């Protein structure tokens, strides 16, 4: 993993993103990020038998923001909701053979977006979703996007 530049896997997902688009009237929807910070991603999921059967995303952001979004759609499909909730930012980065250090926090929000989508589904089902206090990153990822590398 180099300090600069993206891995081949990141570039592949950036240039050929998987599962791009919108699901009309989805079972779950999650959106994180803020255009001010340079990253916004949204994830749409459909569920059957407690498993993710369909997933789509749209992302505004840099190369790693788009690649991580694409990657997580491949990781999540077919998984149970509990398994999907376990996918971490690190898992996504590892599946892409790593991300440049400065991108790890700012442009690696896909796992958060997926969790928001799952929680949205659960809420619609009337399930009580515990709030972990970490609201989706509407305010530039803890301390603001400008503070990521400081």
């Amino acid at each position, binding site marked *: 993993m180099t300090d600069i530049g993206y891995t081949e896997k990141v570039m592949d997902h950036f240039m050929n993103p998987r599962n791009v688009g919108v699901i009309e009237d989805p079972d779950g929807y999650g959106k994180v990020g803020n255009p001010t910070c340079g990253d916004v991603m949204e994830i749409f999921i459909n569920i059957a038998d407690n498993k993710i059967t369909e997933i789509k995303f749209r992302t505004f952001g840099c190369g790693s*923001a788009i690649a991580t979004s694409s990657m997580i759609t491949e990781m999540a499909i077919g998984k149970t909701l509990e398994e999907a909730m376990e996918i971490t930012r690190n898992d996504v980065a590892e599946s892409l053979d790593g991300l440049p250090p400065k991108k790890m926090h700012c442009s690696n929000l896909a796992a958060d977006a997926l969790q928001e989508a799952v929680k949205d589904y659960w809420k619609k089902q009337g399930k009580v979703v515990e709030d972990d206090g970490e609201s989706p990153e509407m305010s530039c990822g803890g301390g603001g996007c400008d503070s990521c590398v400081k």
Partner: protein
Amino acid sequence: MDNNKIYMDRGSATPIDPRVLEFAHPFLKTAGNPSALHRQGLEARSAIEEARAKVADLINAEKPASIIFTSGATESNNIAIRGTAMRNIGRGKHVMGSAIEHMSVLNPLKDLTKSGFTMDLVPVDKAGMVDLAKLEELISQETVVLSIMHANNEIGTIQPIKEISKIVHEKGMYLHVDATASAGKVPIDVQDMNIDLLTLSSNDLGGPQGAGALYIKTGTRIQTVMPGGGQERGLRSGSENIFAIAGMGEAARLAKEELPVESERLKRIRDDLIRQILKNEKTFLTGHPEKRLPHHASFRFSFIEGESILLMMDFQGVQISTGSACSSKTLEASHVLLATGLTHEQAHGSMVLTLGHENKPEDVKIVAEATKKTIDRLRMLSPITQEGEEYPEEEHHH
């Protein structure tokens, strides 16, 4: 350079002109110290003096001795700002710049505030032009120096240096001009423009990296900021980088000779490029529409992000630059674009094209097509379809 690639990022790094390389190459082999009296030393000395005369000629300096060589524009800017501020501390402790200066001007200015100086940055308008009324208002009896860039590297806007010079000199202070982006692209006459100090970079002229120059008008009160062996009139101690300096001199000579024809040629290609790219929807020119560097085109596109633009253009064989936060070292949005009144969101979607010798009229079609493809693809991916609507101004945390 790869033949299948189109390089339009000369503002970031300029390929060394092959003629310059051929001229300066012998000086990589000779290890003469210009301070030594033997033949090798004298040859090195004469190479440096020849380069000094060529650089002086490019900017019509009153004499070659008004030029000192440095390691680059950053060092020239530091010497100019710190050197005049510290030497004229008896006059006052106030320094000024504009809001769109390069970091190598902004940070030395900021650094002086640790030594008890106060600092003001003159705002610019939407086109990046310095607000002259505000400039005059901010100058006080205490002001020692104003540092202003001749032309901006990100948005291409050229400042009215003669008018600024008049204001500054009526107040009896010094004017430092950073001409890194403009030298060799538009004519510079330090005597006619009445400039006290002027920064030049070798690489931006097509010379080797590792050299720069500072013009210092005769009689300017300046002190050394890096004491040492006393080279370059004591203002820039350290053994000279002869290869880079000789190359810079030759690059300056070629730039002066070719400027009138080459800048017209590049301007025609550039104008065509702007016309083609502005055909895309929600696409805007940044910087001044007319008062801009002839080889410079800069844009912003709504709903998409600059690093992605850069990567997708690169994939299509076109190398460009962006002011996007994500591609910068600090992840901060471009202070230049923000100073022209853009929001962070808007500043993220910028693209800068800087043309040079290797660019041809037929490049326009390829670059315009690559740009259109890039915009279309990234917008298809983007969840943002209307600017500022979903995230009203008050939710911006900056």
